[in-house]
C-alpha cells in the first residue's frame, strides 16, 4: 500500500493435523496502518493461520517474518510481548472480575505495596477512553454485562500493551450496528496511528466498510490477496466458496415468494406473556408452517421472549394456549414434551456440550425427552445421526468425534439436528447463523424453509435483518423488551422497513408522552 | 426390643440436629450461670466417643462434678478425635475464665502454647488420663490417671510367666503419636526385652478399632504363617478384633493364639470369661472421686503431687472375669 515494508510476512505456511492438511502453502502479508481482512468459509483455515502466526500451532513448513526478522512464537503471550495482540472470537475473560480488573489483568500497575489499584483503574480508564467506552463503569463485574460489551472489554484488554499488530478474530459477531460503528471508529483511529490490523469477519458489509485489503482462503489453501476496492462482492463470495453465487442466492430467496396464509386455530397463542425485568407482557400468535421473525437490536428482548416461550426462564405473567389448550410451560422439559424446541444464541455455553461426541450431542434432547430409563438403542441413535448429518451436510460426518473439534457452522448444524430429532411442532432458533460462514448459513436457512414447508412453526431470531426479511412470514419488531410492531412480510418489506419502525417508534413515543 | 425406641428417639434428635446445622445456628445452652455464684466452673476438654473405656470415664467425671456437689461442668468433647477442636475448646475456656480446666488430650504433642495461655490467665490445668508430650510438669498442676506404664508392665509380666519357653508376639497399637500408646509400649518393652524367648514379629496400628484390628491381624497371621502365639492389644476393642481374625484363620483364640488386652471393659471381660481373650488388665476409668478431691485441693491452694496414680486390677482367668462381671459398670 504504502512504501513501507510489511510488519508481518508469512510465506508458504503449511500445517498438518492428523488426517487433515489444515494449511497448505499459504502466504499472508500485513502492512502497518492497514486493515486487512481474512476471508473464507468456516474450516477454510482462518483461525489456524492466526494461531500459526501467534505460535499456538507449530508450523510444519514456511517462514514467518515479523518486522523483517524471522520469528517463531511460543504462544499468544510470547507473540503479545513482540507486539502482536489477539482478541479471539469467543470472549475469554474472567466473568467474576470487574471490567477494570479484566482490562488490566496481568498488567496491573504495581506500587511499593503490591498492586496500586487506583493507578490500575486509571490506566484501564485511559484504555477504555481510546475505544470510546468512557461511559462504562470500571467496577462493574463483567458477568452483569451483555456479550457485546464483554467483547469490547476484551478488545480494550488487548490494547493495554499498545501492540503494533492487532488481530481481531470475529469481534463483531455479537455486536449490533451501533456497537459495530463504535468499534470501527476505534479501528480506524488505531489504523491511522499506524497499527496493523488483521480482521476476521463473516459480515460482507463490514468487510467493505473497514478493510483495505482482503486475503481469501479456501479449504486450507491460499486463493489470493486483493485490494478491497478491486474485488466486488459476488466475486469475493464465489472465491470463498469456490462455486457460482447464483446457486446460493436461489436457496434463500425462494422463501419470500412462498408465503403461508395462516388459517384455523393457532398452534400457540400467548397473552400478556412476560417476566419482570426481562420481558414486558407480550401477545403472540403462531400458526403451523409459519416462520415468525423476531427482529430488533441486541438487547431488545428477542432472546428473553424466546426463553419464556420455551420455559428456559419462568414467565411471571400471562397465559399460553397450545393447540387451543391452556398450557403451563414452566421448564425446558415441559416444553420438549409439548414439542417445542429452542436453540440458544449462546452456542458455546448453552448449546453444545463440548466434550461429548457429535452423536451424543445430537441424541441428547431426544433421549432427555424419553427419560433415561428408556434408552435409544445404538441402532436408533446411529439412524438418527446418519439422517441429520447427511440432511444438514455436517462436515466431517464423523459421529464419534468430540463436537469441540468441529467448526462453528458445523456445530450449529449438529445442534439444529438435535432439535429436529425431537420432531418439534414449534422450533425457536435464536441467532442460528451467527458467526458461521456463508455456505453453512445458506444451508441452515434452507433447512428452516424446508421445515416450515413441512408444517413446523418456526420462531427465527437474527441480528441480520436481511435474513429475517428473507425467511419470515411475519415479523415482530422488538425494542426495549417489548413488542413494537407486527409486520406481514411481503415484497414491500425490507430491512430498511424494520429499521424505520425501530427508529420511528422513538419519535412516536415522544409524541405520545405529551 | 429396647433398642427400637432408642433408634426412633435418635432420629428425632438427629433431625433437630440437622436442622440446626443447616440453619447454621448451633446455639450453646450450657452457659447457664443462674445456679448461684458459689458454683465452681470446671471446663472439661474431653475426648468424646472413642470406646467403652472413655465412655465410662467421662460419664464418671460428669456424674461427679454435679451442681449438688457445687460445680458447673462444661463438657467439651472433641469432634472426631480432632486435636484442633480440643485446642479451640481449651482456648475458649481460658477466655471465658473458668476456675479449673480438666484436659484429656487426644494427641500428646502440641499443647505448650495453650497451656501457657492458661497459666498466664492463672487457671489451673489438670490432665485427666492422657499425658502431654514432652511431659513438662511445669505447664500443668497434676496428671491424674491410672499408670499406663504399670498396667502394660503387668500385662508383660503375665506374658513372661505364661510363655516360659518363649514365643512370637505381635502388638496392636493405638494411633501413632498418642501418649498412651507410647507409655504402653514402653511398659511392655521394658519388661519383655529382658526375656530372650519372646520374639516381637511386628507392631501395627489399628486405631483402637475392632474392624481395623481384624483386618490388620488377618494379614499379619498370613505373613507369619500363623506362627504367632501372643497378641498384645493396647485396648479391648482391638483385642476383640484380633480374636475374630484368629477364629477366621481356623485357629482357636486362647489355645493357638493368646490375646492380652488393656482397659477391662465389659465386652472384654465377657470374652475373657468365654476364653477368647486370655488376659485383661484393667485401666480403671472410675476415678471421679479422686479427681474431685484433687480439684478441691488445687482450688484451696494446696500442693499436689505432679502425678497421681489411680490403682487398677488385672484379670488372668475366665473365673476372675466371671466374678468381676456382675459389678462392671462399663
Amino acid at each position, binding site marked *: 500500500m504504502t512504501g513501507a515494508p510489511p510488519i508481518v510476512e508469512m510465506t508458504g505456511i503449511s500445517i498438518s493435523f492428523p488426517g487433515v492438511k489444515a494449511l497448505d502453502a499459504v502466504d499472508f502479508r500485513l502492512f502497518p496502518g492497514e486493515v486487512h481482512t481474512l476471508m473464507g468459509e468456516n474450516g477454510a483455515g482462518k483461525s489456524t493461520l492466526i494461531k500459526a502466526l501467534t505460535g499456538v500451532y507449530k508450523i510444519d513448513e514456511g517462514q514467518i517474518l515479523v518486522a523483517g526478522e524471522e520469528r517463531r512464537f511460543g504462544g499468544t503471550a510470547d507473540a503479545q510481548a513482540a507486539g502482536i495482540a489477539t482478541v479471539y472470537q469467543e470472549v475469554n475473560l474472567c466473568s467474576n472480575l470487574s471490567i477494570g480488573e479484566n482490562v488490566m489483568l496481568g498488567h496491573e500497575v504495581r506500587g511499593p505495596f503490591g498492586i496500586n489499584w487506583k493507578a490500575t483503574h486509571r490506566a484501564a480508564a485511559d484504555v477504555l477512553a481510546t475505544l470510546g467506552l468512557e461511559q462504562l463503569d470500571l467496577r462493574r463485574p463483567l458477568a452483569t454485562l451483555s456479550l457485546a460489551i464483554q467483547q469490547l472489554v476484551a478488545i480494550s484488554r488487548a490494547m493495554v500493551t499498545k501492540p503494533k499488530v492487532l488481530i481481531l478474530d470475529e469481534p463483531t459477531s455479537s455486536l449490533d450496528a451501533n456497537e459495530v460503528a463504535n468499534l470501527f471508529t476505534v479501528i480506524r483511529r488505531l489504523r491511522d496511528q499506524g497499527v496493523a490490523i488483521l480482521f476476521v469477519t463473516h459480515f460482507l458489509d463490514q468487510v467493505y466498510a473497514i478493510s483495505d485489503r482482503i486475503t481469501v482462503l479456501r479449504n486450507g489453501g491460499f486463493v489470493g490477496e486483493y485490494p478491497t476496492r478491486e474485488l466486488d462482492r459476488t466475486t469475493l463470495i464465489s472465491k470463498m466458496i469456490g462455486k457460482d453465487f447464483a446457486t446460493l442466492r436461489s436457496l434463500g430467496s425462494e422463501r419470500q415468494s412462498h408465503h403461508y396464509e395462516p388459517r384455523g386455530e393457532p398452534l400457540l397463542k400467548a397473552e400478556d406473556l412476560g417476566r419482570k425485568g426481562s420481558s414486558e407482557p407480550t401477545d403472540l400468535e403462531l400458526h403451523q408452517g409459519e416462520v415468525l421473525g423476531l427482529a430488533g437490536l441486541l438487547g431488545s428482548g428477542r432472546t428473553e421472549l424466546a426463553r419464556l416461550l420455551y420455559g428456559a426462564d419462568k414467565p411471571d405473567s400471562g397465559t399460553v394456549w397450545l393447540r387451543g389448550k391452556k398450557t403451563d410451560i414452566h421448564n425446558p422439559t415441559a416444553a420438549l414434551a409439548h414439542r417445542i424446541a429452542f436453540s440458544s444464541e449462546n452456542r458455546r455455553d448453552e448449546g453444545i456440550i463440548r466434550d461429548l461426541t457429535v452423536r451424543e450431542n445430537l441424541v441428547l434432547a431426544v433421549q432427555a425427552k424419553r427419560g433415561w430409563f428408556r434408552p435409544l438403542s445404538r441402532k436408533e441413535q446411529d439412524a438418527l445421526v446418519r439422517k441429520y448429518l447427511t440432511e444438514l451436510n455436517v462436515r466431517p460426518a464423523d459421529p464419534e468425534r468430540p463436537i469441540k473439534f468441529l467448526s462453528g457452522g458445523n456445530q450449529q448444524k449438529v445442534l439444529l439436528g438435535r432439535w429436529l430429532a425431537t420432531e418439534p411442532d414449534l422450533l425457536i432458533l435464536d441467532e442460528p447463523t451467527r458467526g458461521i460462514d456463508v455456505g453453512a448459513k445458506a444451508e441452515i436457512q434452507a433447512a428452516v424453509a424446508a421445515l416450515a414447508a413441512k408444517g413446523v412453526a418456526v420462531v427465527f431470531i437474527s441480528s441480520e435483518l436481511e435474513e429475517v426479511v428473507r425467511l419470515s412470514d411475519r415479523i415482530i419488531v422488538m425494542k426495549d423488551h417489548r413488542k413494537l410492531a407486527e409486520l406481514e412480510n411481503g415484497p414491500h418489506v425490507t430491512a430498511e422497513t424494520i429499521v424505520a419502525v425501530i427508529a420511528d417508534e422513538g419519535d412516536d413515543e415522544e409524541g405520545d408522552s405529551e | 426390643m429396647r433398642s427400637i425406641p432408642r433408634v426412633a428417639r435418635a432420629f428425632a434428635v438427629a433431625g433437630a440436629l440437622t436442622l440446626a446445622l443447616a440453619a447454621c445456628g448451633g446455639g450453646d445452652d450450657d452457659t447457664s450461670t443462674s445456679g448461684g455464684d458459689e458454683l465452681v466452673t470446671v471446663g472439661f476438654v474431653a475426648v468424646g466417643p472413642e470406646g467403652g473405656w472413655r465412655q465410662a470415664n467421662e460419664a464418671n467425671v460428669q456424674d461427679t462434678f454435679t451442681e449438688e456437689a457445687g460445680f458447673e461442668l462444661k463438657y467439651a468433647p472433641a469432634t472426631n478425635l480432632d486435636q484442633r477442636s480440643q485446642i479451640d475448646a481449651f482456648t475458649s475456656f481460658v477466655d471465658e475464665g473458668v476456675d479449673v480446666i480438666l484436659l484429656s488430650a487426644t494427641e500428646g504433642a502440641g499443647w505448650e502454647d495453650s497451656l501457657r495461655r492458661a497459666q498466664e490467665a492463672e487457671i489451673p490445668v489438670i490432665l485427666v488420663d492422657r499425658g502431654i508430650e514432652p511431659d513438662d510438669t511445669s505447664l500443668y498442676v497434676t496428671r491424674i490417671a491410672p499408670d499406663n506404664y504399670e498396667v502394660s508392665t503387668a500385662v508383660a509380666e503375665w506374658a513372661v510367666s505364661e510363655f516360659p519357653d518363649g514365643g512370637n508376639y505381635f502388638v496392636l497399637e493405638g494411633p501413632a503419636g498418642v501418649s498412651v500408646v507410647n507409655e504402653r509400649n514402653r511398659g511392655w518393652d521394658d519388661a519383655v526385652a529382658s526375656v530372650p524367648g519372646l520374639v516381637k514379629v511386628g507392631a501395627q496400628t489399628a486405631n483402637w478399632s475392632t474392624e481395623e484390628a481384624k483386618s490388620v491381624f488377618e494379614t499379619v497371621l498370613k505373613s507369619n504363617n500363623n506362627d504367632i502365639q501372643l497378641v498384645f492389644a493396647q485396648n479391648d*476393642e482391638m483385642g476383640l478384633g484380633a480374636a475374630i481374625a484368629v477364629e477366621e484363620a481356623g485357629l482357636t483364640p486362647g489355645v493357638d493364639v493368646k490375646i492380652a488386652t488393656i482397659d477391662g471393659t465389659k465386652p472384654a471381660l465377657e470374652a475373657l470369661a468365654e476364653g477368647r481373650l486370655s488376659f485383661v488388665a484393667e485401666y480403671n476409668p472410675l476415678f471421679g472421686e479422686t479427681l474431685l478431691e484433687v480439684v478441691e485441693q488445687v482450688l484451696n491452694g494446696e500442693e499436689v503431687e505432679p502425678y497421681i496414680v489411680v490403682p487398677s486390677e488385672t484379670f488372668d482367668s475366665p473365673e476372675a472375669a466371671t466374678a468381676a462381671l456382675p459389678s462392671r459398670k462399663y
Partner: protein
Amino acid sequence: MTDVASRLAARRGAIVRNQAFWGVIAIVLLLAVNVVADPGYLSIGYNSGHLSGNLIDILRASAPILMIAVGMCLVVATGGIDLSVGSIMVVAGAVSMELLSGMDGTTGDAALTLAIALGIATVLGAVNGVLVSVVGLQPFISTLVMMLAGRGIAKVITGGQNTTADNDSFAWLANGYVLGVPVVFLLAIVIVVLVALLVRRSALGLMLEAIGMDSRASRLAGVKRRSLQLTVYSVSGLLAGIAGVFATASVMTVDVSRTGYQLELDAILAVVIGGTSLAGGKFSIGGAVIGGLLIATLDKTVVFLGVPAAATPAFKAIVIVVLCLLQSERVRSLFRHRRALRAQSQKEAVAA
C-alpha cells in the same frame, strides 16, 4: 507392515493414556513387592470350606471401598462431590448394631435390619440430593453438613458407645463364603455390575456426563438435572449404607468414631485414580473399581510388609503421588523427551 505397527503403537498409546491402566500397574507392582517379601504371597489355599489367602483378604477388604467409590464416581460425574459417605456408613452400621442387639439373631431379624439400615442410608443420601438440587447449596457444603451430622446421628443412636451385636446371618454378609468365595466380594461385584449396567445400558450415564460437563446446555436440552441429582445422591447414600453394613458386619461392632472415618477421602482417591476428573463429566466405573482395589491392596501391603505404624501414611502417600505423576501426560512426555535425548547422545557417541 508399518500400518499394523503404527496401529499397534496407537493402541498402546491409548492404553497408556488411560489412567486406570496405571492403577492396574500399581496393583501389580505392589503385589510383586509382596511376592519378593514372601514368595508364597499369591498362593490361595483352601481351608475349612473356603478359599483363603492374601488375595482373598484384599478382595474382602476392598468391598466397602468399592461401594463408596462407585457412588462417589456417579456424584463426581455430575460435577458434585459427596463428603458424607463415611458418615452414612457409620449411621448404617449404628442402626444395624443397635437394632440387632435388641433382637434374637434370626435371619428374619437380619433381613429387617438390613432393609431399615439401607433405607435410612438412602434417605440421608436423598437429603444430600435435596440440599443440592432443590435448595441449590453447593455439593461440598451440603455433604459436609451431612458428614458432620451423620456421625452425630450415629453417636445419638448408640448413645455414644461402640455397640456390639450377634446375628450369624448378618455376619455372613461380611464373613461368609459362597463356593469358597467371600460373599462380601461377590455382593460388591454384583452391585458394581448392576450399577454399571444401569448407568451404561440406560441413558443415565450420558445424562450425568451432560450435567457434569455443561449444566446449562443440558438443562436446555431437557435433561432433568434435579431429579438426576436426587437419584445420584440417593444412590451414593444407599451404596455407602451397604459399605457401612459390610464394615460393621465383619466384626459385628460399630465404632462410632472410627467406622467409615475419612473413607470419603479413599473414595475420592479411588475415583480420581480411575481417571474420572473431579471437574465432572466423563466418568469410569471400571476405573473407580480399579482405584478401590488399589487402595485395598495398598492398605494390606503396608501391614504385610510390616511398615512401621508411624511411617504408614508416608508410605501410602508416596505410592499415590508416584501413581498420579505417572498418570500425568506432561510428566510422561518429559520422560519420553529425556529418553529420546539419551538415545540421541548414545547414537552420537557411537558415531564419534
